[in-house]
């Protein structure tokens, strides 16, 4: 093992360069390390104590961002900053840009990755909510094979996902927006750059509405009753949230998002 002592509890470290090597290394006590913006603080607090970190930094082919047959394909190691600056994203998937600029501060966005955000499954994270509104699909690999997870089926709750310990999220596929779509991401945070208390991702187009909520549940959710009301031009129902304040906040944010 060797190496200098560091702030976290002792751990082994691997830095594979190919996806196959990485897949062979991850498992129960081996955790993948992406941009480290959530995991490293947890390591420093010694709340996370993996036996081994598998650093995905040098794995080839995980940081691409391209349009492919009308869909957007984003490698899991793509930095928030790359999404923020991408013309392809700005022109075809503006909701992602509207959401990503609300993630932390520039320093965090220059290191943090979209795959790390999704796999960490913090219920206050913006990108998983935007991707839920966009109907994204998550491509997952393991030594056992490949599978695809629908956006709403990844997170189970705070810091819990349906990913098996030996699986890696490798790519995010975002379908094209419907013609004439307009999008918005609005949130309320205590301070600029803080995690959101509540947020709304909205996509509207003729005959189409997608509303995804942050702060309604311990994971991203869609609001089908509100979506139906928007499509039918009915009065909007209140979001289905138990907490009265969160309901009031989300109601106000939904109004702002669709204004």
């Amino acid at each position, binding site marked *: 093992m060797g190496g*200098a*002592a*560091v*702030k976290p*509890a*002792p751990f082994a470290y691997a830095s594979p360069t190919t996806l196959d090597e990485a897949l062979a290394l991850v498992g129960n006590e081996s955790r993948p390390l992406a941009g480290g913006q959530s995991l490293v603080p947890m390591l*420093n*607090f*010694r709340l996370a104590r993996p036996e081994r970190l598998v650093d995905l930094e040098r794995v080839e082919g995980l940081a691409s961002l391209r349009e492919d047959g009308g869909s957007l394909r984003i490698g899991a190691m793509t930095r928030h900053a790359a999404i923020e600056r991408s013309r392809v994203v700005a022109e075809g998937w503006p909701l992602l840009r509207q959401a990503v600029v609300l993630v932390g501060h520039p320093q965090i966005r220059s290191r943090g990755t979209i795959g790390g955000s999704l796999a960490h499954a913090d219920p206050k994270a913006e990108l998983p909510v935007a991707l839920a509104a966009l109907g994204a699909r998550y491509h997952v690999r393991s030594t056992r094979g490949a599978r695809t997870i629908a956006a709403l089926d990844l997170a189970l709750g705070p810091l819990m996902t349906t990913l098996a310990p030996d699986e890696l999220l490798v790519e995010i596929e975002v379908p094209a927006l419907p013609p004439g779509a307009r999008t918005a991401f609005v949130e*309320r945070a*205590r*301070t*600029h*750059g*803080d*995690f959101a208390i509540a947020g709304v991702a909205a996509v509207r187009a003729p005959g189409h509405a997608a509303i995804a909520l942050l702060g309604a549940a311990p994971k991203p959710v869609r609001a089908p009753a509100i979506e139906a009301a928007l499509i039918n031009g009915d009065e909007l129902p209140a979001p289905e949230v138990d907490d009265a*304040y969160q309901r*009031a*906040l989300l*109601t*106000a944010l939904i*109004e702002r998002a669709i204004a």
Partner: protein
Amino acid sequence: MSWIGRAVPRREDEPILRGEARYLDDLHVDGVLHAAFVRSPFARARVTGVSAPAGLTVLTASEVPGTLLVEGRPDLELTDAPHPLLAGDEVRYAGQPVALVLASSRALAEDAAELVEVDYDPLDAVVDPRAASETLLRFEKRSGDVEGAFAAAAHVVRARHAIPRVAAAPMETRGVLAEPAGGGLRVWASAQDVHRTRAGLAHALALDPAAIRVTLPEVGGAFGSKGTPSPETASVAAAALRLGRPVKWAEDRFENFLAAYQGRGMEAEVELALDAGGRILAVRAHIVADLGAYLLGNTAAPPHTCAMLMCGCYAIPAAAVTVVGARTDKVPTGPCRGAGRPEAAAFLELTVDRAARELGLDPVELRRRNVIRAFPHETPLGFVYDSGDYERCMDLAVELVEPEHGDEGDRIVATGVALYVERAGGQFEEARVAVEADGHVVATAGSGPHGQGHATTFAQIVADALGIEPGAVGVRLGDSDAGLDGIGTFASRTTAMAGSALLLAARRLRERLDAGETGPLSEQARFSSDQVFGSGAYAAVVEIERATGELRVRRIAAVDDAGTIVNPLLAHGQVCGGTVHGLGAALTEEMVHNEDGQPTTASFLDYSLLTAAELPDIRAEFVQSPSPRNPLGAKGIGEGGAIGTPAAIGNAVAAALGGRHVDPPYTAEKLWAALR
């Protein structure tokens, strides 16, 4: 040409901005051991055993005995409950240091600390100060016919306010490097001053103060939280003595949230007796302070200051105050920027606004009928205010803030005004001004800085007295071996006290120079004075969104009377910094302990500091009523913003809510609930 009142840029900034400033953690001495602490995970427990694998260097209370210094005061009833360096057979707050582990690096020391096993018998924790059975402090003061005034009053107004605990959260956390030296110690500490650090260590280690030399490296802020040496600092110094090796501790942010003493944490019931014309006849206040588990050297200061300031800026003939300092199973409290003054301002000023609402008077008009206009003014509680122009501060603040009130449909807009008076200065400081053999002028003071800009200000004062440029004055600070006694940098006292000592020394030197003396010359002065009383008025315009309760501060007016302003640039910086500190206390900051006494806000994830994006327009002006108590006429400016701002915001919020009561921080959720 006078250098007093000139906006001279800070000479301190360039090395800091170039990355050349050396903070505690930048210091290295050969052979140093690094310390990590084993801390209690329980708020209250009996400690029944400590064990560690062979080969670790672990010190416990049996190797490092002793307690920290608590100086008694004749007017305060203090319980004998000093903080032990390391916990003995009981722990009384989550985070209390139990053992000290030493290794060749901080990281290895943390690894080793995890191998230390401590056996605890957990006990129920006392979290609510009102439910505490033990007290650490009692104080009571009264003067005038309080009962008669309340019996005869046309109106009696009662209010209850609570101000939560806050973290000082300096950018640089605490730390110390201690090296054995000739039977004593050489100590570098991230501290507010050298004198209290040396006195505190001498007491804790039973050493002659002369055997300890304390030096301040660059210190990245304290906001009151590095005034009295911590149990960790004393334990590290004790370890260095015992092992005969240099030992260093640079705490991390988590430790700072857990174990650095916290501020505020006071509740009060305030009653005002008013006559039919709106004149305040008497004030009565009962204050409960959540002092935490032990008395530190300065734990008693904030509640005492708060109680003594309960007459505020008003000519109130009779007053009665009581303080109960409750012992709770939480980290101790101590000064945090304002240190009792923000609490007093909020308790009194929010009650004055309540009185205005109940009497149907404009709050500014009610204040106008009661402000003190003649100085010196002795309050019934015994403070003697030296000078001021409270009414002018108030009128200027109202003018600057451009008040707005009204219902804008989706939001309510309201303005709040608050006055404050604060005690500053007092006691003594020593300083020396010399012409050295090479002809250079050097000013040396016992008082050291932790970010304020002492060197810039001191150079101006000396240059002004000698008739030279400030750039020609070298300044030496922060060394207990400089041969200069003093108290330290706290309570907005440095310009008034150390600045005046320098001025006296420089004037004497000037006389000798004018008399034709040459060669190395040195003059030393000691300046003592009674406290001085700075004052001010703050006003804020806020808007509250009905649908979400979100509060936005549209603008804030800050008018401070700190007597003579030596450097308006630095003073303006202090006002802005203090105002932002006060805004944080009003809007987001709160240290929360759950029912088991566990802190739930022990990182910046949960403890919310404001960012630049949240800051409103700050319109700051000075009124200058020189103090007659020192030759500069100076008072103090480091705390005004932190004192006036929360009270002004509180009054604006209360006005917006039509008087419905909410305690700070004024979070959106609380305001939304109050609007329902």
